[in-house]
């Protein structure tokens, strides 16, 4: 349904959290995200893994993913602009940016 937010314009994602170090925390984030998305058996958690080609998210899962990442980051006030997330690394960068600088009303 809301894959439109993710695919509009076909743009490549901007990096939301600066250069990423794929730390154990990042690995744990990716594993938790896959679990919350109920991707049983998924074991590819590298930053370059494509959410759509590799994890094969459908449009509803793409919609869920944004909500899950924002919930994981504890962002009560989400950013006004929707993120463009294409890879596991993008999702982690977005999570990290929310944690570092929570938006407020």
């Amino acid at each position, binding site marked *: 349904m809301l894959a*439109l937010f993710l695919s509009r314009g076909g743009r490549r994602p901007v990096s939301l959290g600066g250069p990423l170090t794929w730390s154990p925390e990042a690995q744990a984030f990716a594993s938790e995200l896959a679990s919350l998305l109920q991707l049983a058996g998924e074991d590819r958690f590298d930053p370059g893994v494509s959410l759509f080609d590799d994890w094969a998210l*459908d*449009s*509803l899962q793409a919609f869920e993913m944004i*909500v*899950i990442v924002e*919930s994981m980051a504890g962002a009560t006030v989400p950013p*006004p*602009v929707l993120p463009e997330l294409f890879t596991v690394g993008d999702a982690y960068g977005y999570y990290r940016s929310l944690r570092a600088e929570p938006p407020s*009303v």
Partner: protein
Amino acid sequence: MAARKVLVSTFGSAGDLFPLIPFIDRLMARGDEVTVATRRGLGLYLRAHGVRTVGLGDGSELRVVHDPRIFSTRFDGWESWHRTVDRYVAATLEADAATVRSVIESWEPDAVVTSGFATAARLAALEAKVPQVEVSIYPQHVRLGASNVRFARRFRRVAEQVAGRELSTADGARVVWGAPPDVLLHDPVLLGSEPSVGARPVGFPYWDTIPGTAGDEGAVRAFVSAGGPVVFVTLGSFIGVATSEVWLDAARVVAALGVRAVFVGARGRWADEHLGDCRDILCSGFVPLSEHLPGAAAIVHHGGIGTTFGAIHAGVPAVVLAQAFDQPFNSRLVAAAGVGVASSRDSLETDLRTVLDGRAAVDTERVRSALIPPSEATASLTDLVDAAISQKRL
């Protein structure tokens, strides 16, 4: 007029949110500030539309689309509401009320506008004594039946725990069901002589101008223009996720009748696997009905209030397969007003055939021409909110 701050809150589906968007647009266009407190999933629509949001719920409400027990027409759909409130509203009410309370304290809105299951915002507004305007799209909530009064009493206790004090009977009904509403977003021509209606309906601000993906829009346009009658099938913003057997029923029926069909909202892996081989069915993501539905031969839908009005505005007869919530009620309105047929899974083929053959007693044009224009409905709602702010109470 000085710029105002308006906190809008709704907790439900796209059907609850979309009719508020023209109102939000109107406020923002005249310079007011608007923040919308809503469940996170609904917030995505608003953020795509450039509206600031505050997230309610913990994301677990997303599971509602996979919860088959929510989808029930028992007790005229009230069972769905009771379960929604029990499992998904009450579960996060304390945290949500704290969130809204904090927004009210820090942002100091001039008014709080609530609809649907915005219980947390109603509670917070009541505590903070901020003018609150209750907007409803549910005429059946205006006068509660005995079982719903009992339910409201039980849920009131939950609300009282969160508030930390007792609520009066009137405050309880207001907090739990938003009853009685100040504004009923519905249309007299559709409501007719519906006996449960007590509030004055100001019209329904139908809105669906969120764009679909370019691929879906183009594919639907090409499919429709390829010739021959086309039936649209949609189950709304989230019901379609859980009710896969309804999609399969609809696929069998359109094949039996030999018509082509667009299944709006039947997307993803499930649709690819089960409907991918159906040559005469195009599965698409969300596309605005106002853009694509006019000219269709019929629409099969779930009876959500937005889709119901979308079909009337498009002048397309409806075959309604109610699944839950207000949909059984809406399907009766559709049939009584003569804009479609209240159907069931067993009678879908017969009902759709009757509509396509022109044998159903349907006159969409008569009803469409009598509808209160959406812009008037939005203006009435805005006037009532302005009055509430001016008077500090309605």
